[in-house]
């Protein structure tokens, strides 16, 4: 499955290949266009946006929309920009990722090596949960969290992300652990390792690659979540995506498209950063999540 082009390089360009390159370039332009528009719009001032072509480069660079989007743009009566949302998203994402990845790793480990009667029935149920629309579960879940006294709190939203991240993460951890040589586990058993010891000393040290995949999947997934944050995080912990939507969709005042676009870029910086840094790992995450075991 190497992605490095192999075989001899074509000696000369045929008409077909030129056509192919043209087509792929057009596709690339289509995919890049929104990003390009986002960036240049954020660097224009409003007069230029009103007067000029959306695709033109800015005549004069104007950076004022960036600090405004970050710390002054208004959502309703509060004008603190995206900054609180950014820190809320971090407060939500970091513990949610740690808890959900940790729990799912243990689940995968137990399912792969310590199967008991009925374990796979519950695993099946859990996987089924990955496909249930959130709308069926939000209200009852809200009632459960209310009864537990954690609705609209940070632990509440962390629990929700853990619940909804669990099926797919458990699946990828299980698949990874199943692919490990079973003899390793048997040897550890003979040496007297128990459930916890084998996990800590044998399995965790081997789990780095799959953990990276799981963390990437969760960081981008949780950062990009909107619906769960909207319902479960509460007013004080609203994630960045919710605040972004509030800033852009205000019903009153003059729309400032440059501020909107700066805010949009700021919100997607974290997942884009993760994407560009992780490269092939991100792709592996997609493949791992998609290929069922």
């Amino acid at each position, binding site marked *: 499955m190497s992605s490095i082009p192999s075989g001899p390089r074509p000696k000369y360009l045929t008409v077909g290949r030129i056509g192919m390159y043209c087509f792929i370039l057009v596709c690339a332009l289509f995919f890049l266009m929104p990003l390009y528009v986002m960036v240049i719009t954020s660097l224009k001032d409003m007069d230029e946006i009103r007067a000029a072509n959306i695709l033109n480069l800015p005549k004069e660079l104007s950076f004022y929309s960036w600090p405004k989007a970050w710390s002054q743009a208004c959502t309703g009566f509060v004008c603190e920009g995206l900054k609180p949302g950014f820190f809320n998203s971090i407060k939500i994402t970091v513990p949610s990722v740690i808890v959900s990845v940790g729990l799912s790793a243990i689940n995968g480990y137990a399912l792969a090596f310590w199967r008991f009667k009925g374990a796979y029935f*519950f695993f099946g149920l859990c996987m089924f949960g990955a496909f*249930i*629309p959130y*709308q069926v579960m939000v209200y009852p879940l809200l009632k459960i969290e209310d009864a537990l006294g954690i609705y609209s709190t940070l632990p509440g939203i962390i629990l929700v992300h853990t619940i909804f991240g669990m099926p797919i993460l458990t699946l990828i951890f299980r698949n990874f652990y199943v692919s490990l040589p079973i003899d390793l586990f048997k040897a550890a058993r003979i040496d007297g390792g128990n459930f916890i010891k084998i996990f800590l000393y044998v399995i965790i040290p081997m789990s780095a690659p799959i953990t990276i995949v799981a963390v990437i999947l969760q960081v981008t997934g949780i950062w990009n979540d909107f*619906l769960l944050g909207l319902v479960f995080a509460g007013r004080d912990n609203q994630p960045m995506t919710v605040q972004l939507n509030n800033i852009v969709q205000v019903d009153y005042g003059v729309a400032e498209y440059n501020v909107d676009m700066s805010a949009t870029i700021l919100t997607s910086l974290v997942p884009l950063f993760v994407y560009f840094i992780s490269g092939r790992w991100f792709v592996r995450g997609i*493949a791992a999540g998609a290929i069922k075991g």
Partner: protein
Amino acid sequence: MPLFRNIASIIALLPMIIISLTVFVGCIIYSFIYSLTNSKLIPVTNFVGFDQYERLFKQRKWDVAVENIFIYGFVFTIGCLIIGFLLAVLIDQKIRGESLFRTIFLYPYAMSFVVTGLVWKWVLNPTFGLENSMHMWGFSWFELDWLVNRDLAIYAVCIAAVWQGAGFVMVLMLAGLRGIDEDIWKSLSIEGVAKWKSYLFVILPMLRPMVVTAIVLIAAGVVKVYDLILALTSGGPGYATTTPAMYVMENFFSRANLGQAFAASIIMFISVVCILAPWAFYEFYLRNKYAAN
């Protein structure tokens, strides 16, 4: 004493078991029970049979929502598959800058639906967006008023969604293409089969598991679509782009009509089951057949 031996595993899997039972199964049962009541602002146990469902199917808005989800589901799924497969094939041609192109086609997938919706809302802005650009370039006949056009707004949603999701299909297909045996290509070229014919009639059928996986994952996501439409059109103009998920959320949180929301969410759930059941059966059946051989 197998139960005793695996006690640690059972304890480790308890969170998954509890969550699967209470959240994934419990919430559906809860939603179904309360969909049979006339709950308004708070859930009450005043049972009215299937009245809520009857009322639901009489709502013009629900009809529009269902129609939209079919249009969206069809265009989005087909669009993603065709563009994703095409891009995968192009990238598979040992082109230069392969990883650059792959990065470009996949980056939208790292962005959230809210960001996707807001960017396209700006690009398709009827006053300042692409329509204006084309007019400035002299194409005064060019019309791109989809966002304010009742009949076309849903297709604007489709474009944004395909832009975001096509890279995902591309990754899956590319993984499949890279797994095709080199010998098959050799025999095809010895037979003198045109390349596009080989891809369409030989390779594509071989990628069937990939295609099925992609369709199931995309289709399961289609039913959930919410934040993309909220950001792009807010369900408008009027309620022209509303979807079942939006209908549910509206009745839960802004119209205080819980019974309707529960009934609509149960319909959503049933439709997901209808999508998954044939696939699960097919998988299960096939696997059993292979196991028997």
